[in-house]
């Protein structure tokens, strides 16, 4: 009875976003049959989308072991070895919903055995307590009975009696609404970030967004295809911000819109934008939050630069676009709000261009602005400089107000 009911529930899936050939995960959300969970503890299936870096394999194993039984892993991408069970993988162009559904049903009924631990299930350090109370030492700190120091960072004591103690923890690389691949070592005081350091950089922009832009380098490509890819990329970025301000339903709507834009459907972004505005999106993004200076904005380029007021856009010099009276849209404030408005405006503009010139073609090698920040040259600014002093939810908003290319350039691996 219980199993039959459970088998009919939406499949709870936790997504670990990989890098190479990572499929468009937002496609999953079109189906009401899939629930993307916020934590692995609530999921039955760990969905690995694309290949992960070797250095992230240990994180992936830890996430895997956090899933409650019965659990299974599902690989979605093109670079999986043949040793993976057919029921547990799909190519990136496939629609995996049916396979996920079947895998889930078999898990619930017991036909598919639950996966065992990948890591040893034991405390990282043995108990070394001694004495009457097991304290292993005298005084307040009580020795090191767990074989490690108190969970406090080796930084200077910043307490003044009215401040919480600080603690340091690693966050990433697989979290919802977190730049895929980014691992930060964050020192918190309560929920306010004291300092942050990059442990692993984020992944570059996904292939799924890059396809038309890469193709333009080698062959003649339709303007509509390029602009649709731009609108879809921006919609996915918008969706992450919407989710962070507590509008998960609008976020899902934005991601579904992105999928429909890619599938060449005619969609309107205006209703989504209005719904978000009515929900109080402006109030949720404090003015000045995540403001960057003009020099950084110029160095980053792309939407971040245009959100700072510079009308720099490669499309201004492209004859296909100038024939359509293209002028870049800009914002002035250069904060999270401005970058979000910039995404909305550019996505709307892209769709307007598509409907203005549905059949326009561009020659191979034509100069077109990518939807994200410049990917070179190296930059001497770290995203971690933006975070100290921010409350955790604000910090997430700031991180997610940049596209992945901008984050990559602001978070190269720091050599200690």
């Amino acid at each position, binding site marked *: 009875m219980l199993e039959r009911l459970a088998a009919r529930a939406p499949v709870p899936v936790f997504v670990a976003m990989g890098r190479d050939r990572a499929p468009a995960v937002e496609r999953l959300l079109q189906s009401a049959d899939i629930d993307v969970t916020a934590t692995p503890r609530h999921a039955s299936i760990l969905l690995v989308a694309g290949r992960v870096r070797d250095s992230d394999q240990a994180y992936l194993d830890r996430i895997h072991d956090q899933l409650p039984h019965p659990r299974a892993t599902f690989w979605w991408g093109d670079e999986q070895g043949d040793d993976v069970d057919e029921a547990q993988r799909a190519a990136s162009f496939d629609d995996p919903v049916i396979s996920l559904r079947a895998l889930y049903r078999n898990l619930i009924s017991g036909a598919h055995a639950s996966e065992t631990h990948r890591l040893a299930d034991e405390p990282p350090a043995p108990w070394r307590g001694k004495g009457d109370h097991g304290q292993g030492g005298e005084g*307040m700190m009580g020795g090191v009975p767990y074989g490690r120091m108190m969970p406090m960072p080796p930084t200077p004591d910043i307490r*003044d*009696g*009215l401040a919480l103690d600080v603690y340091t923890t690693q966050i990433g690389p697989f979290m919802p609404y977190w730049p895929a691949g980014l691992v930060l070592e964050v020192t918190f005081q309560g929920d306010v970030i004291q300092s942050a350091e990059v442990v692993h950089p984020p992944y570059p922009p996904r292939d799924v967004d890059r396809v038309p832009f890469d193709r333009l380098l080698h062959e003649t490509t339709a303007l509509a295809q390029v602009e649709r890819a731009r609108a879809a990329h921006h919609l996915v970025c918008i969706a992450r911000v919407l989710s962070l301000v507590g509008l998960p339903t609008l976020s899902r709507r934005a991601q579904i819109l992105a999928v429909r834009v890619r599938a060449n459907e005619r969609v309107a972004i205006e209703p989504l934008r209005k719904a978000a505005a009515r929900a109080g999106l402006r109030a949720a993004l404090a003015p000045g939050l995540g403001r960057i200076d003009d020099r950084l904005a110029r160095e980053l380029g792309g939407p971040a630069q245009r959100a700072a007021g510079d009308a720099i856009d490669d499309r201004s010099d492209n004859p296909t676009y100038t024939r359509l009276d293209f002028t870049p849209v800009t914002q002035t404030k250069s904060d999270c709000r401005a970058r979000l408005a910039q995404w909305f405006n550019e996505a709307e503009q892209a769709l307007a261009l598509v409907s203005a010139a549905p059949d326009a073609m561009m020659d191979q090698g034509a100069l077109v602005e990518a939807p994200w920040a410049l990917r070179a040259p190296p930059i001497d600014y770290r995203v971690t400089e933006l975070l100290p002093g921010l409350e955790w939810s604000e910090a997430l908003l700031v991180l997610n107000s940049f596209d992945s290319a901008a984050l990559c350039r602001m978070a190269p691996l720091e050599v200690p």
Partner: protein
Amino acid sequence: MTLTTILVVAAALIGIGLYGTLSQQSFVMLMMGLELMLNGVMLAAVGFWSLTAGGLPTGQLLTIIVMAVMAVEMAVGFALITAVYRNRQADVTEGLTTLKH
């Protein structure tokens, strides 16, 4: 549930509270001991009011005053601890030795 049993329970709370007040090194734990003693006092006051005073409203008033005293004790206690911590970075009673010299 007679007045005697209620008062014995109250006495137990006061005794434990005294133990905590005298034995704890940390200021905050010391205040917990004081709170526990006041807890016993409140129980005794309500017990007397309920079983010997025939429901005279002033008896309840006494308990309300004890509650106010408790709040005052907490607030002033924490403020003092903060001030002491700022001045001497001490959060245990042994940290305060100025009166010895």
